[in-house]
């Protein structure tokens, strides 16, 4: 098991390297002079020169690569944001907890809802519950989450006044208010994910339920609940875990839009704003961070495979 995980980590190194190279290269792919674009087309030469020096764009490229990696590897330093007048790493660390907590809450909600509904509709295939679950999941896939968020604000916040219309209260300040401020964003983000997980769970369960060992277990008189939970679900978990892992990446992306809808000061909004401001160091840092997070989640999924199915590590 240890060797399998080590192997997976080693396999990720080239991907991590490529992610960091593409983050670094981002600014050099910008057509034209990034310093001019950042400072503004009408900016005086003096300001442009200052930006160029601050961004270290005036030194030869191999030196830039060297300095960038040196700062990143030795100090975890991602550079300086010209617009926030702060370290990029500090800005990201400040906003990361919010984005991650919404994403984790959303994936938890989606997994519970999705696996529950999926298993239920697989066990009662073609029943009313099954049809309802399929309609709900098709809706969840088709309704864009930013619009769903707006509709939820309109109904639950503006009309009923149950939740705040936006903004975030930190947990340390007031736990109850904090949960209230996270409720709608979590639900919004969780819906699409729940739809995907429901569909996958249903398909996986239907396949497993026709297997011989399930029929044997039923034939020897085990209760249906035991068979579904112990024999079937355990064997259907592999594709379900895969889709949960993939969905987590979707949520990190979805956060950009959802945080705009709910005016949450998280990573997503930071990325969106820094693109509008053309704050390249921040964009580079944020993409790198999210890319790495995504890779880590994929690694966790691989580890889960190994725990769920001992055969995996021998392949």
């Amino acid at each position: 098991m240890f060797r399998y995980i080590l192997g997976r980590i080693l396999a990720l190194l080239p991907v991590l390297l490529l992610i960091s190279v593409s983050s670094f290269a981002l600014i050099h792919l910008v057509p034209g002079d990034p310093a001019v674009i950042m400072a503004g087309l009408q900016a005086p030469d003096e300001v442009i020169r200052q930006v160029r020096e601050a961004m270290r764009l005036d030194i030869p490229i191999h030196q830039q690569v060297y300095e960038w990696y040196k700062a990143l590897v030795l100090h975890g330093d991602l550079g300086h944001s010209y617009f926030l007048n702060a370290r990029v790493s500090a800005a990201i660390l400040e906003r990361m907890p919010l984005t991650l907590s919404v994403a984790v809450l959303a994936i938890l909600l989606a997994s519970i809802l999705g696996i529950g509904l999926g298993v239920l509709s697989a066990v009662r295939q073609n029943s009313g519950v099954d049809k309802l679950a399929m309609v709900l999941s098709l809706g969840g896939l088709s309704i864009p989450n930013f619009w769903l968020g707006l509709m939820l604000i309109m109904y639950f916040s503006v009309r009923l006044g149950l939740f705040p219309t936006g903004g975030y209260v930190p947990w340390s300040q007031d736990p109850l208010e904090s949960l209230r401020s996270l409720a709608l964003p979590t639900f919004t983000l969780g819906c699409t994910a729940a739809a995907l997980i429901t569909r996958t769970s249903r398909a996986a369960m239907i396949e497993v339920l026709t297997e011989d060992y399930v029929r044997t277990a039923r034939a020897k008189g085990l209760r249906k609940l035991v068979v579904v939970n112990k024999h079937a679900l355990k064997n259907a978990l592999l594709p379900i875990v895969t889709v949960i892992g993939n969905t987590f990446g979707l949520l990190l992306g979805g956060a950009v839009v959802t945080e705009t809808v709910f005016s949450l000061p998280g990573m997503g909004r930071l990325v969106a704003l820094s693109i509008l401001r053309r704050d390249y160091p921040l964009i580079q840092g944020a993409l790198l961070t999210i890319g790495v997070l995504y890779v880590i989640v994929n690694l966790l999924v691989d580890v889960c495979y190994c725990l769920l199915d001992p055969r995996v590590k021998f392949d």
Partner: protein
Amino acid sequence: MATSESRIYLARMSRNSLCMVGAASLLLVVLVALLAPILTVYDPLKVDPRSMLAEPSVRHLFGTDHFGRDLYTRVLYGTRISLRIGTIVTLLTGLLGAVIGLASGYFRRLDGPIMRLMDVLMAFPAILLAIGVMAVLGTGEINAIIALIIVYTPRCARIVRASTLTVKTREYVQAARVLGAREGRIILRHIFPNCLSPLIVQLVFVFAYAIVAEAALSFIGVGTPPPTPSLGNILSEGRNYLAVAPWATVAPGVAISVTVLALNLAGDGLRDILDPRMKLG
């Protein structure tokens, strides 16, 4: 494709009611978008200060926005733009995905480098990658199209590559090679047609993703710039008037959802018809 084969597909399609519903709704949406200039008397850009934020009424079916522009008209034209962007993205993604996938699957030496590049592109969540590309290229409709093509091409390329790898070992491909067919002919006449079904199914979903993603990009302000109506930027403008003019956010959202739902239904149905093994349940 032989006529009898297409007849089998058509017969299967007519028996798949969800697919028919999806295809019919899609046709309706396309017709509405194409006929937009006939279906409305207003100009989507015409500002009317006398009727700002007017409620839905007979004169303004979906109400008006904060500039007094008719929302029904703007949603019609917005749908037109969404479908146009979706179509361009889908066609070019299909073309690029097919070329890259075939090359990667057929020529073993190209496979490694191409697939590593695709892996990196897929290491970023889709919408974030699109945003990253927009950061490089700058905002605007054409750049959004380029960004979405870059995002979805790897997904199509992977699927075509996978089919190419299985198809190229089949006897009829070996037979063609033995008969002295050139590689271009083998790829185009013998391999490509057999990779088409999964690609077409995937492209229907790419169409749906592209519409949602373009709306999302426009919503956060980096896609189609105002005043051109796109479903995303109508939503983004309406958002500021959520409490006083809820209709400004309802209509464009319903338009996106209906379009995407139609595509999802059609895609699910097509998958069942073209590739019964992949059927969900």
